């Protein structure tokens, strides 16, 4: 069976997190991850940092953003009518 090198796995980590790869590649990668502690930790820690980052940034729009946008558009619609 063909196996992947650590370097090849590293190159695919981002695609793996995005679930953006062929089922065959996914299988190869998972076989490698089961056997290689180093790559498994790399995947885990990258994933975890991204989750933390997304959690920290549950951004809200600035207060009044939508309202100001609607005002701006309402003026534009007025102009478009005349």
């Amino acid at each position: 069976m063909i196996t992947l090198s650590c370097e090849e796995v590293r190159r695919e980590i981002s695609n793996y997190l995005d679930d953006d790869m062929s089922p065959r590649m996914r299988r190869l990668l998972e076989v490698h991850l089961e056997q290689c502690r180093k790559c498994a930790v790399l995947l885990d820690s990258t994933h975890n940092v991204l989750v933390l980052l997304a959690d920290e940034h549950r951004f809200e729009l600035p207060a009044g953003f939508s309202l100001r946008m609607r005002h701006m558009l309402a003026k534009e619609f007025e102009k478009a009518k005349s």
Partner: protein
Amino acid sequence: MQNTLVRESENDRILEGERELIAEILAGNHERYYELIAPIERRVYYTAYAILRTEADAEEVSQEAILKAFRGLRTFRGEAKFSSWLLSIVGNEARMRLRRRREVSLELLKSSDNEGEYTPIELAEWREIPVEALAQKELAARLEEALAALPEIYREVLILRDIDELSIAETSAALEITVPAVKTRLLRARLMVRDYFVSRSWARHTGLRKAQP
């Protein structure tokens, strides 16, 4: 396969709905433009924010882009989603403003675009990072530092994809770079942000920096 088909027909339905809505707006029912904008205004704002990094500029650019899209609605082809089109306008406007603000040419930004192989820091365990030991505030500061430490081209792509949750295609439209370029930068950005976070958390926690190989 099944899933892909379902997703495609869903996509067609969205496109169809958008086309009808746009036809109505163009026929003079302008108020319905709000309906077109409402579901994506957050993503519009954060696309601008990812590039500009200040609230006031991001809001202004969002408004300008939304206005520009309204004025140019007749030129929208309807082959792609309206959101992708609008996000590419926002991305453009934001980059233009950034260029003016910093007087840095786009060429210069692009030339710092070193996208070669990247070697991440090795850890024995995720547990080595003392996340639990960090107070919530400290954790947030650490993450913010890591994000700020990234070179611009990587920070943009990371914010759009992993914080704003734009799709790869939308990120590509917003930044006007190819899909493969998005993927290459994203891999690098993700590994880098992890490394910054890991090394800084470590250094703060133990008072030591990890030895460089």
